[in-house]
């Protein structure tokens, strides 16, 4: 029988958020003799037991290739894989399961759109609109397609708080703009972009919008239909699922019109040397044997997040972020980078003139894991005139004690560099 139809464990539904830390086995360890404080979920989040178990169960009992065999295991694998798609569809409120394409992650999803949706119709003089705060994976795919087609990449500025002024973005939406590609949440700054206003304005001008949701999905309730977004890309490993799996949500009308991204098995109906007919959606975009176990893990993660409730998660994280920001701001010699009024789960900072890398080492030595560097957002660092930052990022498993430990470790850092 398939595990696919297993309903989320209802008994966990109203568990206090504070209890869910125990769901994440990796957190129960010491690093350099201190209990681990994991404040790097924006780079990659940890997996709860239900995700680890879903993947292991599949590997142990149900593995086979999908959409192929007549045998029992292949059926089970296919059921599990497709039920993960259903879980993701529900998780982001997509209208149809055919609109959920499994990819390797946000990066591949954006490249897919750049190459399959944009490239065939782009020409010299056309424009692609992005903002100054994008992750490299929402910059470089557009640079590549611009190079291929002669189109121009237009960058919308950010302000000193790290926010995009939607009006400025909208003013740049002229009749040569072919797509607007923007982050939902900035990974370096935490800013939440005002999507609704931007998407409406773009659609008024018949411009499609791609949203890089990598940093949004584990923190905010996302409803792609309410947003009316054309493309929404995200990665499993930022939302408690394994690496190497991600999602491209795209409106069916777009997917229908787009040529395949890659050719191979599974994405075809019939292959003849005279010509090949492509498979129906979403398989047209899933060439080759997919990351089946990753997809199953992603499905389990989506169910887990849904069972905890995204609104409750957001409220918990907002409280924590406020506490984190307040504690950091109280440190002498701190400079906060990314101070937009509407933010999620991320705080970048600099401390005295201590290089972020040194901060990272001293914190790690005290069991506190943060990210240091340019966070794959070099233009953001250039904007602030800094080589990099130290960044603490939160997830639902973090608590005030984690932040207290961070603050104490920063005091230690200052002591060493005093």
């Amino acid at each position, binding site marked *: 029988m398939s595990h696919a139809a297993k309903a989320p464990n209802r008994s966990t539904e109203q568990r206090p958020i504070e209890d869910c830390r125990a769901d994440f086995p990796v957190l129960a360890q010491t690093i350099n003799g201190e209990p681990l404080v994991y404040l790097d979920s924006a780079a990659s989040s940890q997996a709860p037991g239900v995700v680890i178990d879903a993947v292991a169960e599949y590997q142990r009992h149900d593995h086979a290739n999908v959409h192929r065999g007549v045998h029992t295991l292949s059926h089970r694998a296919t059921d599990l894989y497709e039920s993960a798609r259903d879980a993701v569809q529900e998780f982001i409120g997509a209208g149809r399961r055919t609109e959920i394409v499994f990819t390797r992650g946000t990066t591949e999803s954006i490249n897919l759109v750049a190459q399959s949706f944009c490239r065939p119709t782009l020409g010299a003089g056309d424009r692609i609109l992005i903002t100054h705060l994008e992750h490299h994976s929402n910059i470089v795919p557009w640079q590549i397609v611009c190079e291929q087609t002669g189109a121009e990449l237009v960058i919308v500025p950010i302000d000193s708080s790290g926010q995009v002024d939607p009006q400025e973005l909208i003013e740049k939406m002229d009749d040569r703009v072919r797509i607007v590609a923007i982050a939902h949440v900035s990974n370096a700054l935490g800013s939440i972009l005002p999507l609704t206003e931007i998407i409406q304005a773009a659609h008024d001008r018949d411009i499609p919008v791609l949203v890089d949701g990598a940093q949004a999905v584990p923190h905010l309730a996302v409803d792609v239909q309410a947003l009316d977004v054309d493309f929404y890309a995200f990665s499993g490993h930022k939302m408690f699922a394994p690496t190497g799996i991600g999602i491209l949500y795209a409106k069916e009308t777009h997917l229908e019109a787009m040529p395949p991204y890659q050719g191979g098995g599974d994405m075809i109906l019939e292959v003849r040397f005279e010509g090949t007919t492509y498979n129906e959606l979403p398989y047209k975009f899933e060439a080759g044997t997919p990351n089946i176990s990753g997809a199953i893990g992603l499905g389990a993660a989506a169910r887990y997040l849904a069972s905890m409730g995204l609104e409750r998660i957001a409220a918990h994280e907002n409280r924590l972020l406020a506490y984190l920001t307040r504690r950091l701001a109280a440190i002498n010699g701190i400079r906060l980078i990314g101070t937009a009024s509407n933010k999620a789960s991320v705080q970048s900072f600099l401390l005295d003139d201590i290089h972020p890398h040194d901060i990272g080492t001293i914190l790690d030595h005290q069991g506190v894991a943060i990210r240091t*560097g340019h966070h794959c957002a070099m233009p953001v660092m250039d904007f602030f005139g800094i080589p990099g930052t130290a960044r603490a990022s939160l997830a639902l498993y973090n608590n005030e004690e984690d932040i207290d430990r961070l603050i104490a470790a920063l005091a230690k850092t200052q002591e060493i560099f005093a």
Partner: protein
Amino acid sequence: MSEKNEGKAAELRELYRELILEHARSPRHFGKLKDATHSAEGINPLCGDKLKMYFRILKNGRIDAACFEGSGCAISVASASLLTDTVIGMSTADALQFFSAVISRLSGRSTTSDDADTVIDLGKIRALEGVKEFPSRIKCASLAWHALNSAIHCNDQTVSTE
């Protein structure tokens, strides 16, 4: 403070020794060398360290001047600063031998098979040996040295730690 904590604090102090912090705060020979004959850039894409090393090497092979500019963490800046202090006055042959000794000593790789590396007295450079306990920081300490090697061998290149 518990024994454990003391041990840990000592490890950190090993890494961030006074000499390292002092060189990081006020690096020697910092700036561009206008009449440099050799130069190389060292970058550590992981953390954004970027150091440009300049050397003036005389016809007889002696390193007559050394400077550097750029930005990086305390370890990479101190290492570059100590490097300039060390190699001025050396022949390029000696500097290269020193480079090889530093790299093997910092990475804990020195074995009996490369005696030359273990015999050389690293002098002040020993202050960098604390990185041995911090594997992710070995690259920071060796960045400037790789740039030195590159500058002598193939002038005007960029070396990367990745």
